């Protein structure tokens, strides 16, 4: 139905062969759309992107969509059986352990080829953490279409794109400190409403 889809495995192999030291990971997609994505390491992302754009077989000359995604810290609870001394005798006791997988921000690029008419190839770049100044390399020097969209991800998610020529807020005002598309963002109460009115309603 859609344009010719590209084998993700092949693209991964091609990148790894062309860009030395680039780590590429395939993220399988469980939905019927079957659009699997490639996670690039930040160090080699620009080089890999240039390869994808200029390689005569792939020619992914068109970067359609850039989306920011916020992944919160995940708390994983698992039950583990441990041998412990209870009342002097060793017994098997069940314990719950909690571990936290740190969250991160993600920039997702959808690439197509206008020349070869195929796509999409989905690229993902991930930040180290969700802190202020979490960064990924900018792909605007490779595809100009990312210019406004990366600015938007910077504005609404707080992802800093290193190497972006003009990284400013685009939709919100400059003085704003927050990033409203983040999952843990809490909107400030309306100035006209008495304090607590929002909380009482229990609304979002």
């Amino acid at each position, binding site marked *: 139905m859609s344009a010719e889809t590209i084998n993700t495995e092949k693209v991964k192999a091609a990148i790894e062969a062309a860009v030395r030291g680039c780590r590429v990971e395939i993220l399988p*997609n*469980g*939905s019927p759309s079957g*659009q699997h994505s490639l996670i690039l390491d930040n160090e080699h992302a620009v080089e890999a992107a240039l390869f994808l754009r200029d390689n005569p077989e792939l020619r992914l000359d068109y970067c359609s969509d850039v989306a920011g995604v916020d992944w919160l810290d995940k708390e994983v609870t698992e039950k583990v059986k441990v041998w412990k001394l209870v009342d002097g005798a060793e017994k098997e006791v069940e314990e719950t352990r909690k571990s936290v997988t740190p969250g991160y921000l993600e920039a997702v690029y959808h690439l197509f080829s206008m020349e070869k008419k195929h796509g999409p190839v989905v690229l993902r770049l991930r930040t180290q953490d969700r802190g202020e100044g979490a960064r990924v390399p900018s792909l605007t020097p490779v*595809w*100009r279409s990312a*210019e406004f969209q990366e600015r938007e991800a910077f504005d609404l998610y707080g992802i800093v794109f290193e190497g972006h020529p003009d990284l400013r807020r*685009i*939709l919100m005002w400059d003085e704003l400190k927050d990033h409203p598309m983040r999952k843990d963002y809490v909107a400030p109460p309306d100035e006209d409403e008495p304090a607590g009115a929002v909380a009482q309603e229990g609304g979002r």
Partner: protein
Amino acid sequence: MSAVEERIVELTGDVDSGQLLEVSMGPHHPSTHGVFRMNVELEGERVMKLKPVFGYLHRNHEKIAENGSYLAAMPFTDRLDYMCSMTNNWAYALSVEKLAGIAVPERAEYVRVIVAELTRLQNHVSLIGFLMQDMGASGTPLMYAFREREKILDLFEQLSGTRMMCNYMRFGGVRVDPTPEWLAEAEALVGRFPAFLDEFEQLLRENEILMSRTQGVGVLPRELAVNAGVTGPMLRASGVNYDIRKVDAYGIYDRFQFRVPLGEHGDVYDRYMIRMLEMRESVKILEQALREIPEGPAMDPKARLRGLRPKAGEAYGRIESPKGELGFFLISNGTPEPYRYRVRPPSMINLTVLEDMCLGRSVADIVVTLGSVDIILGEVDR
């Protein structure tokens, strides 16, 4: 050039040396098509720098959609590009269908094509009207365009209950099955449309003012258009053969015969002409679709609308909206709300090259160039 003239040039150069005039065009400029601003730096009449400023209409559409169910976002998509709610609906429905693997019945596919092509007709015709208005042709072409647009909106009203905010499509079909009378009326409208196009074209095509104001103005080179992700009529005016109706053949577009008009110069005149020609192709598609539309259900009876919970995964679906590639990127984590809901707004991304097209031109050309981009601020700002 005589010595006197040379000296005049020199003198003016001295007075203004290195001084740029900053002008803020908008946000309430009649030619900005909404609340949109351009920070322009001028040397005399020449544009040296231009930065678009937008976001005045921002309501965080994506966040609102992420806080509700999949179905709840459908009426909100109407408000993106409020001239073309039908195509917005389709793009969103298509993405959800991809995400959840929902099939669409034959008849619904045909109805979708019919309403989408009608949307394209009314979008292009009003855009040309606005463009003429921007050039100072006050009233006449715009009123001609709006007269035709109104007829199409009447059809939408009969079908969906609303002229502009149609909220018509659903995952797995369309909300209301069109009656035979409606289809007959649509057929009659499509039959009359070429005569209007002839009239409209005769009025404008060789108009001297139109030609002198648009030919060679706002030129967008082919390579830049591709690299900057420009889509829709603007891309094709620059000579790139890329129409998602052909490339993806989403829905049932592979069943219809139509051509993709291409421009040569990438200037404003070509962009105007491409839209004119695209309307003729839309009429062809409409004739075929209205002739071949089969009987049957307009909605998959098994499709779940309320409480739709796609299994975890993601999908990017896109269509050729009248403004360009309109895409929706959805991530599901198995809950009834989309974890991530992203709109790829064609008119915002087409603005990326506005500065490149205007540099070195005069202020009056900015107005015409912006008019030919075809922006709707509801979609740019979201």
